């Protein structure tokens, strides 16, 4: 079993940059999933990560159209400008979008509003129903491993059972770049093509590829109040309490999700290059700065994922 000696060669040139390598890795993953699965779908919220995955999918199949549809779970608490951007982008790519609405589930009693008002955990049931209704055997997502400790553990192709559950203790080994998409009836796979990208990679790619994003990713004036150590937007679903002071501040969003649990950060970054600079020197992680729901416990994300969340 003795292996012959290995030879190492000195570095001469790196022909591909970090972004080039990550881009090709993502395109390879997207193509593998499309080739091996019957009915893939892409989770698309209009947030920067899903916009980047959509852009990569368009590149993967050029000059053909993107060969799968999109799915959004609308909590009913989304920022209006993001929904508008979502619909515009979907139209520009000529793809079909299905919207699963948390509000409908609340209206007919299948889901109950939580005491804390956040609807992020409520997305799981409509998501699983939509996956079943669309008979989707593969679901693309824009999740990245640098976002959270639990995400850092997940495979690029992550097998879920018929309840959408992730079993972190028993993950399939993922070897070389050989992805195994085999699954049994009822199971599906979540596929994360930009697993290995960092927040900074995403922004540099957006800059390099000149990708359009919802306006709230850039600095703008907004009425906000301070809660849980972050700036929350004043809105119909997120009013300030009597003891909270409303201020007009220049802010931007680092992540875009539910208005009731996503916070803004003070920022003067009005352009992509400003944001790249800002992200490069940030001392706080993006979810730590902006997501109230991940502060519930050290394992908040893992617990949600085990139940079928992304």
């Amino acid at each position, binding site marked *: 079993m003795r292996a012959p000696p290995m030879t190492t060669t000195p570095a001469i040139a790196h022909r591909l940059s970090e972004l080039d390598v990550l881009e090709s890795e993502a395109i390879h993953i997207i193509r593998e999933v499309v080739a091996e699965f019957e009915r893939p779908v892409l989770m698309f919220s209009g947030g920067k990560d899903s916009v980047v995955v959509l852009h990569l999918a368009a590149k993967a199949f050029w000059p053909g159209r993107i060969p799968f549809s999109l799915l959004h779970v609308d909590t009913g608490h989304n920022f209006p400008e993001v929904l508008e951007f979502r619909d515009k982008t979907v139209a520009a790519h000529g793809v079909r979008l299905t919207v699963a609405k948390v509000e409908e589930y609340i209206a007919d009693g299948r889901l109950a509003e939580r005491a804390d008002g956040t609807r992020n955990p409520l997305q799981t049931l409509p998501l699983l129903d939509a996956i079943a209704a669309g008979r989707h055997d593969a679901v693309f997502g824009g999740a990245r491993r640098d976002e959270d400790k639990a995400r850092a553990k997940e495979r690029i192709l992550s097998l879920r059972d018929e309840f959408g559950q992730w079993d972190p203790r028993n*993950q399939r080994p993922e070897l070389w770049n050989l992805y195994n998409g085999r699954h049994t009836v009822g199971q599906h796979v979540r596929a994360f093509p930009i697993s290995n990208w960092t927040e900074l990679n995403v922004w540099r790619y957006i800059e390099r590829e000149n990708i359009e994003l919802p306006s709230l990713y850039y600095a703008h004036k907004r009425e906000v109040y301070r809660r849980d150590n972050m700036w929350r937007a004043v809105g119909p679903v997120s009013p300030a309490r009597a003891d909270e002071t409303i201020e007009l501040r220049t802010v931007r969003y680092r992540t875009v999700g539910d208005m009731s649990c996503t916070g803004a950060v003070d920022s003067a970054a009005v352009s992509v290059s400003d944001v790249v600079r800002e992200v490069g020197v940030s001392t706080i992680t993006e979810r730590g700065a902006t997501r109230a729901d991940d502060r519930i416990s050290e394992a908040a994300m893992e617990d949600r994922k085990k139940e079928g969340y992304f």
Partner: protein
Amino acid sequence: MTLIIDTQDLATEAAVAAPEGTLFRFATAGSVDDGKSTLVGRLLHDSKAILADQLEAVTRTSTERGFGGESGGIDFALLTDGLRAEREQGITIDVAYRYFATPARSFILADCPGHVQYTRNMVTGATTADAVIMLIDARKGVLEQTRRHLSVVALLRVPHVIVAVNKIDLLDYNEAAYREVEASVRLITAELGIAEVLVIPVSALVGDNVVDRSERTPWYAGPSLLELLETLTVIDDLDERGQATEAFRLPVQLVLRPQGAVVVTPDLAETFRDYRAYAGQVASGSIKVGDTVSVEPGGGTSTVTGIDFAGVALDEAFAPQSVALRLADDLDIARGAVIAARGTLPPVTRTLQADLFWLDPRPLAPGARILVKFGTTVVQALVSEVTGRLDLTTLGVEPATSLAVNDIGQASIRLSRDLPVERYVENRRSGAFLVIHPQDGATLAAGIVTAPGEPTRAGDGSGAGSDVSP
């Protein structure tokens, strides 16, 4: 595993955004308690990759669990042990990926588990690594798990092997004690055929030789761990002549044939009506427009007329680019085919000898029906014989008739159809395969080809013509 650091200076000293550079992937390995998580914590901390809120969360949990307290001690394992079960049991179960950058390059770190029962997850981390850092406790020397991981690293031909002899502070920076461990490491790596191994005395706890060279090891003249990581070559780098080191291979993922359903502007639609290209990621080597290629299955040859990257026409493509190739001839090419530089493909065969890293709790017995996945092709196969198993004590092969989980063994495999099988030592991409359970789809083993069987047809490199029937 308590690392003493000053938490006050962190939040203000953010990492400065590095210019866009190269990406380097490395994995940590070694036995449990050799200090892997502490080393990872030290590396991330000293390269300013731990952000303030992460440090705050880890500090809070550390204090709750009685670590450090007022002394400011932090259990850095909490940074990478992200699962509930891992934190509860204080062990690493699965690979955690961490990302950090220095002004020199960006890193993807796969922090692998040390326990024997999670060796499969260590294999996962090692298959994509440009380098593996093997941790050894200087007081304990080489353990069985060290041998197991070094065997994995040697067989997988991880390009760079670094052995960090840790806890050197507990040996009072004694050179003789270090040299003894180093000598035993070099003995084993030589035995395993690892040509070049870089051994470094470190203390993850205190930080000696991790980011900065230590003054407490004046007898060690080499670079620090981070300095090494910043300068080692990446898998897909070129050789000294500026050439790719392996022959061109592109496993075809799918055929791009939009037949009019194109995204280009209407005036160009007609141009793309007959567009047909073979999409895939270059697994090895490089190809230029005008080059002649061979295709398996089928054994046809053609000329590359175009290389497309999402609307950009390239003159040349190389690993690991995801491209689409256009060919001059209308060959019957579908997913699973391999496009290769002409004259470089081995003859097709239906049998092979392989080393298997058995990863499933269900043992392997001869006669087992399996699926194997090479590149983008999946074929039915049969394990005709298990011929041996690696003995981790002697590092020799002992006779065996079955393989259990975490065994590294040898087997003969029969394929249901002809494949151009290559030895892993000649091509790290096309010589690697997955063993898949035909019913439930589980990944049973990582396989590497040690010897292709008898050719069923001449290869394109044999000069005998490429379209001879079997």
